[in-house]
């Protein structure tokens, strides 16, 4: 599978080895040593996936994520030193789609990138169009819009998540199911990925994200979409 990957990493040796590993997997790699340089590179040439280290000199990884997110829905993977910190949640809230921890295994990173690229393409089995509240989800066109025609911008991950929930309205989907279907993780995937993305989705879909009417939490079970 081919794709264009932007790597933002300040450690030169890690950068070279990542380039080697990703090129070995058949990707086209551009790399940047700082957030600013990364944003420039992103603006210059099309990118399919951005890989951003959170600890960067100058503009940090969070800021870099937010800057990318403002202008683009490109899939972002953040690279963090630790999995069990608030950094992960903060990174996801800054707009990242997924994360890997250092030291990562090249194969695992490649798998994450593959999953993200797959998400960028339409799923095999799309749900039909669904209307809930004042929103209309058109999976085949990859569009979420309000009934007044205004389009609601969301990332591909958010869109896929919404499609999975919409595929079986009123049915509870567990975190594990959502992790598997959207991110391609097994049982041990990080449930925080789902939680943060649901939270982000609610800010776009719900009138009052604090009192959701459509994307509901089912305690101890998972989430469901109520049209």
């Amino acid at each position, binding site marked *: 599978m081919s794709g264009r990957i932007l790597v933002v990493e300040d450690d030169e040796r890690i950068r070279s080895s990542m380039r080697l590993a990703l090129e070995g997997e058949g990707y086209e790699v551009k790399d940047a040593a700082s957030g600013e340089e990364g944003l420039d590179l992103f603006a210059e040439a099309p990118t399919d996936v951005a890989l951003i280290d959170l600890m960067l000199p100058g503009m940090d990884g969070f800021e870099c994520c937010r800057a990318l997110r403002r202008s683009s829905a490109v899939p972002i993977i953040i690279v963090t030193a630790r999995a*069990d910190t608030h950094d992960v949640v903060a990174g996801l809230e800054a707009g990242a789609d997924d994360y890997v921890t*250092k*030291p990562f295994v*090249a*194969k695992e990173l490649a798998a994450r990138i593959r999953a993200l690229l797959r998400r960028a393409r339409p799923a095999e089995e799309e749900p039909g169009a669904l209307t809930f509240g004042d929103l209309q989800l058109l999976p085949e066109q990859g569009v979420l819009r309000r009934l007044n025609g205004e389009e609601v911008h969301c990332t591909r991950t958010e869109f896929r998540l919404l499609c999975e929930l919409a595929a079986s309205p009123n049915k*509870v989907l567990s975190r594990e199911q959502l992790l598997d279907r959207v991110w391609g993780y097994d049982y041990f995937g*990080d449930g925080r990925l789902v*939680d943060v993305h649901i939270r982000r989705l609610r800010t776009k879909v719900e009138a009052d994200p604090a009192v959701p009417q459509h994307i509901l*939490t089912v305690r101890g079970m998972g989430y469901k979409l109520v049209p």
Partner: protein
Amino acid sequence: MKLGIGARITAVFGLGALVLSVLLGGISYFTVRHFLLAGRESAAQQQAFSNASVVRNSLESGDTQYVFLLGQVDAGTGAHSVLYHRSKAYVSSLSVNASSIPAQLRKEVLAGTPATQTYRNAAGQEEIAVGLPVPSVHAAYFEVFDLSDLDHTMSVLGLTLFVAGAVTTLLGLALGRFASRRLLRPLSDVTSAAGAIAGGELDTRLDVEAADPDLVGLTLSFNAMVDQLQERIEREARFNSDVSHELRSPLTTLSAAVGVLEIDRDRLPERSQRALQLLSDDLRRFQRMVSDLLEMSRADAGSVDIFLEEVNVSELVQRSVETGIGHMDGRRHGTPEVVVDPQVEDWRVGVDKRRFERVLVNLMENADHYGGGVTTIAVGPGPAVEPAPGRLVEVSVDDAGPGIDPAERAKVFERFYRGSASGRRGTGTGTGLGLALVAEHMHVMHGDVRVESSPDGGARFVLSLPVLSNGDGDGDGDGDGARDELVSEKEVDA
């Protein structure tokens, strides 16, 4: 039994008060008695002397109406006279007779020497007998004085002194107890501070301002000791954390580079392939070691962020075993059987799934290295506990080994502890942190781990976790809206 310092101080005070009061009481008693007795003696002698002269005058004048004579002189109350005249004894009252006079005294007086003697008579009463020879008429005059009133006075005095002594002793004991409490109070502050420090509250210090002036030295050096201890612990934790962090970057590079080589593995000569295999296996082990160390140093630094997720316990265990086997390194002894007690099938627990998987992997690896492999993994109900819903669920991992000596059981959870099985290091796996991390992970997830022996004599590691719900009310209780499923907690020491 060894007495405590408090008890000893109290005892010393009590004993001191007792000795002092006995001494003072004794001295007073005997001084008073001596003084009173001496007074009575001289009074008795005077009276006896004057009576004797009356008797002598009468006898000299030839009067032998003894009874009348004695009746005349026997004036004092409680005093009785005995007169020996011409080898016959005459008494003044029926309460005395010749034998009332102590033999010794009688002998001395009859031999011609005046004498006085204090004694107790046959009835046990104290008396003074004064004997005066009257040589001019060949007679001897004795007068016996009853001292029972003195006896009475002395016994009242004795009783009073005894009571005073007892009260003084009790006061001494009370004072001793008070003093020892006062004395030990600063020490109890030290004790509770030391306890808090041992319990991990390294910021605990003694209040120098409030310290007793005599104990300022102790307080200062105690605080200095804790300062140094804290600094050392923090330096060590920082060092561990720094080392592990610094190791991450080269490890990331190595891992990515080995990944590149692995893509091209089939094109490498066989020797290089074998070398690559060794390289990637040990790299994986190295990575685990670094992440274990990092995990430990973070736990030491008290900065563990934990995200607990509510999951079904039997599914968790089954999945963890299935996936965990793929993550194990070193030799394997087959796939263990997982037995779930039907009672706990729907029980849910709050865990970090990755941590729990690591716990099971570590236990299975431990069983493989030291216990001949896992025989059974069982999930069952544990004992009831305090907070609702008040149950523990237990996951036990049995191995086929020789079991663990009870004396070693607590130690197996120590870092880098290699017990008597240390000889069997096999193909060099295990970081020495495996079981320590098991304990660490379980504590972070509010659970616990212990080791006992399985019915087959092998080791049985028992994990216990608090149950969040036992599946009774599993309706889709939505409605709590945006409430996030992940119980997220931050465990930080102030």
